[in-house]
């Protein structure tokens, strides 16, 4: 049997074995919920086939994901996905956009400037965090988190996230957020049926240093 088929089968076999659920709650130092935190589970005792770093590949989604541009912003601020996923960047705006990333070594690309109604496509084939921008509108910012695991979730505005399809076993939970200085990790064990106790994370976030979207004004010139 071909290696890729073996990988797919082993993933399916693990997932089918009494999938367990684990929930997460993310708050900042003041207790406020944190949105857009990405939590992923890395298996500590599953077959190495689940890890792309060991030469295997996870099956990407059959359909491309979509990150649109609308109102001179990206439609989603943070998009987690698995290695090998293709993302479409449709321009649903009234103005042209030029989406790019300078995130070495994960993904460096520049789409040509395209008009409203057009789209560009990018394959994310290496794990890591990719910061997206628009070469026309400096304030436009979004992140793609490329993961090597099929078990991940993104926190909702109420700070909660849930991973429902992981197999029982030991995992390392990895938490990423755009304003987190470094990835936070925690080991946890999922048991059959019961999953794991709800995991609460208090994250120390850096100040939000995004480029501001504000029209300039000038006065005081010579008269």
């Amino acid at each position: 049997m071909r290696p890729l088929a073996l990988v797919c089968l082993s993933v399916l076999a693990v997932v089918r074995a009494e999938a367990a659920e684990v929930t997460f709650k993310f708050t900042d130092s003041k207790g406020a919920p944190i949105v857009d935190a990405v939590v992923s589970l890395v298996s500590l005792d599953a077959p190495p086939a689940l890890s792309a770093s060991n030469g295997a590949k996870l099956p990407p989604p059959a359909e491309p994901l979509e990150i649109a541009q609308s109102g001179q912003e990206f439609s989603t601020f943070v998009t987690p996905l698995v290695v090998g996923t293709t993302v479409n960047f449709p321009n649903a705006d009234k103005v042209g956009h030029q989406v790019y990333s300078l995130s070495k070594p994960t993904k460096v690309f520049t789409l040509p400037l395209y008009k409203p109604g057009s789209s560009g496509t990018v394959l994310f084939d290496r794990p890591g965090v990719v910061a997206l921008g628009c070469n026309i509108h400096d304030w436009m910012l979004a992140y793609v988190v490329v993961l090597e695991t099929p078990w991940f979730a993104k926190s909702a505005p109420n700070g909660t996230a849930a991973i429902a399809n992981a197999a029982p076993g030991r995992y390392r939970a990895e938490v990423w957020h755009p304003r987190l200085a470094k990835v936070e990790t925690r080991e946890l064990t999922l048991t059959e049926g019961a999953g794991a106790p709800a995991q609460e994370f208090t994250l120390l976030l850096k100040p939000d240093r995004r480029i501001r979207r504000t029209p300039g004004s000038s006065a005081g010139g010579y008269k």
Partner: protein
Amino acid sequence: MKFSGLRLCLLSPALALGAGPADWAPNLTTTATWDSNATNASRSADTIGALALRADVTSAARFPFGPDDTFFAGAAIRAEAWPRFDGLDRAALGPRLTWQHKFGVGALAPVFDLELAGDVIGARESARTARAGSVTLALRKRFDAATRVSLTHTRAREDARELVFDRTGAETTAELVRDLDEHWSLAFTARWREGDVLSYATPPRADLVALAHVRVPNTTFDRPFVVYSLEARSLSGGLAVTRALADTTALTFRYDWRQTERGPLRYVNHLVSAAVARQF
């Protein structure tokens, strides 16, 4: 017909490359400025402070050329009202053509602009009606998400109906802008200008007569002044605080100190302004 032909000439390179107008986003800036020395007078007896209200509307279409270059074609409308001295009221309308080159991709890449501007200026005092033109070179660079600088050099010429109101000059501006947080930012500006200035004074002023290349009697400020046109150097420094009211609206408070000198002539302007900028 003439205009259509000119427009076609200007846009044909863009159209030939498959470019099209992707954006007409008008900007409106309304400003109220208190000028402590609207007469540009060197003697306190002739110094008159005045309020000026100004509205600027600019709009441009973008025509990209390849990955790094963009051509903008647009227009600007400006109206200026002086509630106390309406002889200074005027309005201007004219085209703006800009070539922009970005040195690379991303928010931190430096940007170079070359802008050609022309204006037809109407004024309440017909002697001040004019035609104006300018060339501006600008280099902008962002250092991080919160800090950016710009260096601008403008050469401008204004030919008025009456010779004394002609003004030609070259101005260089350096500006540093620092965002303090999500809403507030600070801007520091330094300007250096050499060119024609208008100084109003009660005659006789032998010192100004010796400097001025043109002078005429004038009552714009409700006094029997003589307006002297002379070449001078102006140095100014400014501090602005901007509060973002929304993604597309900002309120700016600004103070500028400006000193103008030519030989024994020396005067200072204190300019305090409040401006609302809105991008549609």
